[in-house]
């Protein structure tokens, strides 16, 4: 009898907490999203009218930011993957006894607040930093071109900030590959590129999936990089949600946007996992 009850007893406190402070808020968010302002009421007072057109309005009004969120997140994810894969490969196979040291170095930048690092990028890439004058001296960029307040800066900032989320899962799954299978591939007439395509990449797929999810999800909801490194022209959905809550006090629209973002991400994630077909994700 005891044995059957044990797991449920262990789960109870944690799940009660998650139910109250995760599931209920999401349900509440869904409820808020169909409310409308009470006629003649104060700022921030809303009543439930089941107005589903809130969603339609919110989407039409912010479709540009919507698109931008997903395009930026996708670009940052692809860039992070391209940068991280060789790095994770090097740590897994070429680092010898320094493997642990290098792993610590991957997460070490995290120990400095990400906001400080993002602002550091802003200053490094800004007009007073050393990068822009150098590039101008060599004529790589024109005098009127800036690096900050651009889409480039926002995507670069996101890539940088989420890079370890990509590198660590990639490392974990590349590190599990038996190096003998790579030798076997070479032995069986596959050159370096074919070995990568036919053996290394398929065997590291769980890491690629986990890494891309862990990068894409926070990137799609991010607004800090856009706020610090971007301009009004690079606003993402997160910036809109934030200002709807704090500046415009338009809770239903903010809720509708949040809910749409969450559902869109869940759908994408589900499709993605289906497509690449990995079972051992969680």
């Amino acid at each position, binding site marked *: 009898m005891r044995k059957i009850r044990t797991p449920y007893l262990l789960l109870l406190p944690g799940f009660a907490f998650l139910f109250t402070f995760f599931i209920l808020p999401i349900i509440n968010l869904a409820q808020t999203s169909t409310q409308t302002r009470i006629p003649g009421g104060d700022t921030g007072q809303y009543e439930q009218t089941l107005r589903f057109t809130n969603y339609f309005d919110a989407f039409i009004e912010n479709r540009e930011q919507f698109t931008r969120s997903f395009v930026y997140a996708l670009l940052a994810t692809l860039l992070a993957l391209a940068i991280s894969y060789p790095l994770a490969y090097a740590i897994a196979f070429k680092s010898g006894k320094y493997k642990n040291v290098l792993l610590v170095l991957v997460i070490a930048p995290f120990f400095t607040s990400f906001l400080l690092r993002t602002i550091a990028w802003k200053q490094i890439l800004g007009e007073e930093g050393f990068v822009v004058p150098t590039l101008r001296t060599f004529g790589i960029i024109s005098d009127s071109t800036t690096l900050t307040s651009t889409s480039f800066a926002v995507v670069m900032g996101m890539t940088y900030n989420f890079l370890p989320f990509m590198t660590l899962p990639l490392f974990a799954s590349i590190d599990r590959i038996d190096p*003998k*299978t790579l030798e*076997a591939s*070479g*032995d*069986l007439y*596959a*050159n370096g590129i*074919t070995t990568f395509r036919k053996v290394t990449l398929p065997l590291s797929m769980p890491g690629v999936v986990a890494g891309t999810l862990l990068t894409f999800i926070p990137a799609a909801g991010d607004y800090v990089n856009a706020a610090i490194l971007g301009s009004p022209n690079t606003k993402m959905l997160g910036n809109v949600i934030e200002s709807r809550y704090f500046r415009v006090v338009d809770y239903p629209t903010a809720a509708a946007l949040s809910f749409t973002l969450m559902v869109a991400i869940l759908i994408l994630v589900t499709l993605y996992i289906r497509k690449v077909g990995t079972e051992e994700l969680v």
Partner: protein
Amino acid sequence: MTKASIEARGDLRLTRLTKSYGDFTAVDDLSLTIPKGSFFALLGPSGCGKTTTLRMIAGLEEPTAGSIYLGETDITTTKPYQRPINTVFQNYALFPHLTIFENIAFGLRRRGKSDVKEAVEKVLNLVELPHLAQRKPTQLSGGQQQRIALARAIVNRPALLLLDEPLGALDLKLRRQMQIELKWIQKEVGLTFVHVTHDQEEAMTMADTIAVMNEGQIEQMGSPADLYDNPETAYVANFLGQSNLIKGTISGNDGDSQIVDLFGQKISLPKSRSHAVDNSTYAGIRPEKFRISLLETPVKGNVLTGGRIEDVSYIGVSTQYQVEMPWGQELMVFEQNDDGVAPFKKGDAVNISWEPAFTFGLRGDEDATAGSEVAPEVLDEE
């Protein structure tokens, strides 16, 4: 060079091959020719350089010096995928994400061969596992994985097949069975096999020629019977089976034989089997060549008297005796349990005798225990 290398055929020649890692020399100035079509074994304990040699032949390690020829083609620096050489890896290294069929087809597809399906099916039949084609490697037993690894290599019809401790992961019974099958398959497909192992019994069962390696060099090379019956060094005498090595002095000649004085008792030893360089020598006799007799029984051949049975172990087909000699050495004797003679008892005073032609002579300045203390069960060389 690289285009032609994949078509290279012929004998494998290693010329003054050396591989060092910093101060450590794994393979030391090794020269060797492996004739086409032979089953060749590199035998030695962990760290003797046999696996490094194999990896250089496969192209997985780059030699520090020396060259590797296949027929007339120099393949020293060609990439593994440009060599007509395939390897059956230790622990197999099957691709876990591919089915058995795709594992075997891998090499054929890389080389753009047609009739992949036919070739794979044929080799699956050869290893008697056609029903497993659509499984994944993790669903197979160790013995099945071993056969698939073999099939994946031989389906390419390489000029040379390398086997790196291929049976190490199998249990004893399965290993015996696979030894016989490997030998049969080698005859069947007619490829050159180079087999690396620490297991002397495995090498002797399968190989036509064995090279015993020690500290990066070849101690002795020859047929299994040559190596066993006429070892040239104490290392070979002890590593291949067991030997009794008795310190002695060459005191004279008698036609084709030498007369050797072992602690005051004279025995004879064929000159052709003596590898001593001066008067000092070790006379070597395999334990099963000895005969034990009670003091009063007349015996022929070489005789050592004054023995005393110290220990008796009955192990079915034979009985093993430890016999203490007057000079304090304990000799090991295996007697077949086939003649109905009552076994000797502990404490019996006995003579030991043997056919002079079975004696071999080693250099007297050798370490008589060389090769006997290595732990052959340690598998990994890295």
